[in-house]
């Protein structure tokens, strides 16, 4: 099926169907009426010719002598008119060139059936009517014997043929005239069906595109109006539930943000005073000292957790913003490692003079998270490799540890996902990778996790190079 024979659009289909039905109907009607008219015409012409022929023969018969001689035959032929042939045994009287059209078949039929026979033939591109009749002698007692005289007439039917042709032509014209009318009617009908359908379609498109206020005004009381009403009701219920869901989602997010925000005030106090505690632990008893140290460590962990929560709620609310500047990638990565004291533990491979428009702080957050995970959960050597293609800059972090188990891989970017229960004591918030991924996406990039070639985990940060100012 390379080409569709049946058109695809509803409008085209309606149009084709309509026109086909109309034309076929009109043509059939016209053809049928032309047929019956032409049949009637031929029949009446034939009857007319035949009755004239027999009338002429009947009128001359009393003056004829029997058995006939050539004179008798000529007299008879002249009475019947032109294009006539009269035969008696071997005698013939003929007039007009067309009498040779009388066929042997006709003559056999006349002799055989012993009554008037007509035949229509076409010869020399002209239709003809052949009439043949035997003459019968009727005795006074009513007995009929064939006289042996046969009279044949050849009549031209061209006039009738022309009349029939014009009938057929007018039938064709009638059908042709019906076509534009049918197209017009089809367009009107298609329009009345299609307009509401199209309106419903447009509404459905708007709904699909997220415009939940879209509605179609129903017109009339037919099935299409019912469909419109149904679509409107559907949109209404979708909108209601969407609004409710959005409100719930917004409430949940706001709650998370508010909680984190509220936590910050007591944390500010704690952060301020644990340093004082740290200074005083020197002269305290061992128990008190350890308690103070625990309080300090946990306060810092709580601060980190709340900060990460705030960051996540900003991503969720869509208020996280990129602050783009020209960043020397190698320098930024090195700064990140230096700030956290990892320079001697991590192997850094980075090209010089690779500049990228990116958010320096967010880049730092991602690199610190990836390298921090590798240092804490993996085995040395931890390696950071910066490379670039035409489209993007890649920052790859690998280690030689056990790598990521198959079961962990799909969840590695989930929030609060701890790969290993024994590791839940590590000083992470459980949000680090989720935040790193969000940061990558905010740049229009991505963060992928997998296994390195020589074993160990491999994380790759993809950052596009064509970030325009936002």
């Amino acid at each position, binding site marked *: 099926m390379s080409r569709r024979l049946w058109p695809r659009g509803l409008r085209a289909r309606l149009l084709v169907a309509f026109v086909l039905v109309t034309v076929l109907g009109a043509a059939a009607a016209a053809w049928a009426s032309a047929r019956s008219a032409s049949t009637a015409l031929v029949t009446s012409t034939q009857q007319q010719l035949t009755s004239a022929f027999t009338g002429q023969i009947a009128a001359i018969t009393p003056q004829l002598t029997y058995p006939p001689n050539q004179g008798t035959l000529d007299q008879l032929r002249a009475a019947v008119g032109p294009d006539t042939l009269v035969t008696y045994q071997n005698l013939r009287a003929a007039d007009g060139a067309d009498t040779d059209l009388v066929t042997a078949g006709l003559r056999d039929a006349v002799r055989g059936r012993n009554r008037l026979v007509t035949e229509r033939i076409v010869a020399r591109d002209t239709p003809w009517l052949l009439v043949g009749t035997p003459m019968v002698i009727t005795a006074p007692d009513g007995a009929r014997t064939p006289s042996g005289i046969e009279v044949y007439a050849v009549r031209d039917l061209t006039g009738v043929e022309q009349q029939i042709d014009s009938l057929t032509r007018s039938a064709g014209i009638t059908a042709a005239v019906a076509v534009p009318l049918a197209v017009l009617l089809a367009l009107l009908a298609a329009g009345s069906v299609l307009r509401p359908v199209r309106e419903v379609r447009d509404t459905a498109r708007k709904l699909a595109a997220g415009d939940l206020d879209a509605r179609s005004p129903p017109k009339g009381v037919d099935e299409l109006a019912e469909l419109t009403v149904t679509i409107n009701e559907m949109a209404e219920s979708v909108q209601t539930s969407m609004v409710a869901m959005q409100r719930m989602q917004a409430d949940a997010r706001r709650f998370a943000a508010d909680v984190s*925000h509220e936590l*910050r*005030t*007591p*944390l*500010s*106090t*704690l*952060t*301020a*005073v644990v*340093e*004082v505690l740290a*200074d005083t632990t020197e002269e305290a008893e061992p128990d008190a000292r350890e308690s103070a140290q625990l309080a300090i460590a946990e306060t810092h962990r709580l*601060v980190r957790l709340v*900060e990460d929560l*705030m*960051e996540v709620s*900003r991503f969720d609310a869509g*208020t996280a*913003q990129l*602050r783009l*500047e*020209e960043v020397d990638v190698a320098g930024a990565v090195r*700064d990140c490692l*230096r*700030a956290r004291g990892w320079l001697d533990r991590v192997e850094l491979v980075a090209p010089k003079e690779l500049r990228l*428009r990116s958010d*320096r*702080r967010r880049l*730092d957050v991602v690199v610190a998270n990836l390298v921090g995970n590798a240092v804490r959960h993996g085995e040395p050597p931890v390696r950071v490799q910066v490379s670039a293609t035409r489209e993007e800059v890649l920052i790859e972090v690998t280690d030689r540890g056990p790598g990521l188990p198959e079961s962990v891989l799909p969840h590695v970017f989930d929030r609060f996902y701890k790969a290993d229960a024994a590791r839940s004591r590590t000083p992470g918030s459980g949000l680090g990778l989720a935040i790193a991924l969000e940061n990558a996406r905010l740049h229009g990039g991505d963060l992928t996790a997998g296994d390195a070639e020589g074993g160990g985990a491999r994380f790759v940060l993809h950052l596009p190079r064509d970030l325009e100012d936002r």
Partner: protein
Amino acid sequence: MAAILLIEDDPLVRRGLQLALGRHGHDVRTADTGEDGLDELRAARPDLVVLDVMLPGIDGFEVCRRIRAAGEVPVIMLTARGDDFDVVGGLAAGADDYVVKPAQPTVLDARIRAVLRRGPGTPDGLRVHRDLRLDTASLTVSMHGEPVPLTPTEMRLLLTLSGAPGRVFSRQQLLETVWEHDYLGDSRLVDNCVQRLRAKIEADPANPEYVQTVRGFGYRFGPL
């Protein structure tokens, strides 16, 4: 050792910061609202104000603007981390620096000392550029002979830039030199300070001739 005014509404945070900064050797006075803070400012004449953004009554931004209008005392704002609105608002209001809450006293102390240290770069006397006169010894600036009051941070920024006319400084370099942020500070500190400096010394801040922007890289001092 500095006389610090801490304006913070939450009593526990206020007390905690007062204790911690006190241990770092500062003399800390406190106020719990912006209005009280402004009164205290006039009465106590502190070296520096540490100002919380979220205050009942007049908020931190407005307090900061009024402190700026009253004089050149440096302001460090306590903002919520990364709440861009807070940071931008605070910087636009004329804060010299900001520290995100919860603030570690050691970090806050380092920032306080850095702001207070913002004196001269290298005293080399008088720098004259067209209508701008900059005396690095007395730390005064004048335009067309009229003195222009600058905050310590603005002064330090102008000194750094004009110390090497024509040289392009990246925002990161300026953060390290002027603000002494060891690492990954906020480049908006630089941008906002440049805006404020331009408003004071440029004839047309929209077409600056002294502090010029080099798109994508940073700032340089003109005219060349």
